[in-house]
């Protein structure tokens, strides 16, 4: 039978719950939270604010040049891929780029997965984008990042912003 650690102190929290500080450093919050006034005068909790219902967006017809732009960008991207990358791209719309710091997965905008060689158990989620990227066809964004990663990886990692850290998937 497991014994409960000794409780060192019990603190009342603002929402009615209690914080139990255990001997050895552990903490447990018990009880049921109930609404209480925001501690800053004039502010209210996010959950108390009325939901804003946005007007439905107009659905614009696709620009006539968009399919051609997409096709050109895709053709350029595919011409830059190695056979394994090309197979991945065609089946998953993602592909890995090897770098001296570990491979980087391109395919999810704003969430590029880096598996650092120096940290075998983890993945870093990075965000790097080309200048004025929203005006580019998506495949051109991958062309841009692919070339920088493949040829000047330090330039990529120098500007990368880490958005997340997680246990590496098998």
């Amino acid at each position, binding site marked *: 039978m497991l014994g409960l650690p000794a409780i060192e102190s019990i603190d009342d929290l603002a929402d009615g719950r209690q914080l139990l500080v255990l001997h050895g450093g552990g903490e447990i919050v018990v009880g049921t939270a109930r609404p209480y006034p925001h501690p800053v005068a004039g502010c209210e909790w996010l959950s108390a604010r009325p939901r804003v219902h946005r007007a439905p967006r107009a659905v614009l017809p696709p620009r006539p040049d968009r399919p*051609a732009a997409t096709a050109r960008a895709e053709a*350029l991207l595919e011409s830059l891929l190695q056979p394994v990358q090309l197979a991945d791209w065609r089946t998953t719309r993602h592909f890995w780029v090897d770098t001296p710091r570990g491979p980087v997965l391109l395919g999810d905008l704003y969430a590029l997965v880096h598996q650092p060689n120096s940290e075998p158990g983890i993945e870093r989620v990075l965000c790097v984008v080309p200048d004025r990227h929203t005006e*580019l066809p998506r495949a051109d964004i991958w062309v841009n990042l692919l070339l920088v990663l*493949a040829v000047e990886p330090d330039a990529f990692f120098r500007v990368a912003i880490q958005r997340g850290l997680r246990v590496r998937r098998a």
Partner: protein
Amino acid sequence: MGVMRIVDSTGDSSVTWAIDDPVSVAEAEAVFARLAGERKIPFARTSGAPASDAERIRAFDPALEEIVWVRPIAGG
């Protein structure tokens, strides 16, 4: 025949030159200088070569087969 491909909203725009045509070479050189001034980044490759075989270049060379221009990058 050399070609510059500049990624843009149309997919890419192309500028071509022939090494034995000084006018086309001069025009391509002027485009190169303009794009470099816009902080765009040129990579050279032999036609059809993968990105891993590309090379960052700093000056225009009419003997190059293909130059792909991309944009500066930033953390988002």
